[in-house]
């Protein structure tokens, strides 16, 4: 991982979406007056006839996307995580997920790393909100390579999906050779002293911590949990068996986030197997 080469996952999202738009004419993109920030503007410039700015009306945007999907379109609806999953929660739940429609909610500016946009925009509840909705797949990517994989993967997947993206530029962790699979965490390192589970922007931070700890003779492994739902229970069981401690770091409230997934998996699966 080269700390000097950085890119924000929202940028990777915008670039990949514009690339996919060439191949797949069913892809339509909706935004709520934030296309410059969510980077859907890249798609908008290339395919103006398939881009719909809905104005500052996230609720209308989500239900409109739902309607489009019933006619075979693959709508990607973007805004900041706060407005997409907060203001339009009811619409995502009832217009999109309840009828199991093929809408991709891709929200940027998630977590406290939004920085100077302030507390009103720092969405630290979105994973919890989206995880709780039946039919919803929840993904939170950590770098450019992983985000581009995820955007393509969810465009092929039928059903409602939430993709969590970030504002800050973060290091590029992976190479093009890296293989990903929805619902499968990526293990980085073989250390057995502890496992650090991370997702999104915290993965690069965890890898840096791993490298620092190695100098001190402490050997940990990092698991990139890019899929929050369905959670990779197997890798949690494996890590618990092979390492002494499980730690999770996330740019999210511990209520409803990655940590909650682990505790739940641990209670259900590990307690019986570890003994």
């Amino acid at each position, binding site marked *: 991982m080269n700390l000097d080469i950085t890119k924000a996952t929202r940028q990777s999202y915008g670039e990949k979406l514009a690339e996919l738009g060439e191949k797949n004419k069913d892809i*339509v993109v909706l935004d709520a007056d934030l296309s410059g920030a969510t980077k859907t503007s890249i798609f908008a410039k290339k395919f103006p*006839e*398939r881009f*719909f700015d*809905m*104005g500052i*009306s996230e*609720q*209308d945007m*989500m*239900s*409109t*996307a*739902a*309607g*489009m*999907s*019933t*006619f*075979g*379109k693959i*709508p990607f609806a973007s805004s900041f995580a706060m407005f997409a999953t907060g203001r339009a929660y*009811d*619409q995502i739940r*009832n*217009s999109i997920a*309840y*009828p199991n429609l093929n809408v991709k909610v891709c929200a940027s500016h998630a977590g406290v790393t939004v920085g100077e946009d302030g507390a009103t925009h720092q969405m630290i509840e979105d994973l919890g909100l989206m995880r709780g909705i039946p039919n919803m797949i929840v993904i939170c990517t950590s770098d450019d390579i992983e985000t581009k994989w995820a955007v393509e993967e969810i465009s092929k997947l039928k059903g409602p999906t939430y993709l969590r993206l970030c504002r800050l530029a973060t290091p590029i962790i992976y190479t093009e050779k890296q293989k990903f699979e929805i619902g499968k965490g990526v293990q980085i390192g073989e250390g057995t002293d502890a496992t650090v589970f991370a997702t999104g922007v915290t993965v690069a931070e965890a890898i840096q911590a791993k490298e620092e700890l190695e100098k001190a003779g402490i050997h940990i492994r990092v698991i990139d949990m890019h899929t929050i739902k369905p959670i990779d229970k197997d890798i949690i069981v494996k890590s618990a068996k092979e390492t002494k401690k499980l730690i999770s770091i996330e740019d999210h409230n511990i209520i409803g986030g990655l940590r909650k997934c682990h505790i739940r998996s641990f209670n259900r699966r590990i307690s019986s197997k570890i003994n």
Partner: protein
Amino acid sequence: MICQQVHFGQGLSVANGMAIASKLNHEGVRVYCICGDGELQEGQIWEAAMTSSHYKLDNLCLVIDNNNLQIDGKVNEVMSIYPLDEKFKSFGFEVITIDGHNIQKIIQAFEKAKTIKGKPTVIIAKTIKGKGISFMENVADWHGKAPKEEEYNIAIEELNQNYLYI
């Protein structure tokens, strides 16, 4: 295609999405959306009304079931939505107001809506909730409850007397 899993206040947005997609697909499909009058109190309806007009959805026809009753009572007393025709006109709709119990008028309104180009149409159908059943007419309480067997039998009898086609 019928999409009936839509939550109150969200139907017009979903219909807009269908109408936009239909235009993109060059399918020539017309989209009909029925809304209650009480749900017009939801802000999303007016977000959606902007969208219908902004994207010039002349393949969309909205029908308002305007019986002036909602769960807590009369719409104009709970939270007034009026004047409805002026509101929709100012949002860029072609507005047709009819007696919602007159089949001929309903058919005429749908036919007229097909001829309107460059903007959406709304049919404001003035109706009476529970029409044709003496003890249900204009009673808000029947918004969301099923009749008991005895009430059901009376209701069916009255409907048979009042409407030959049932």
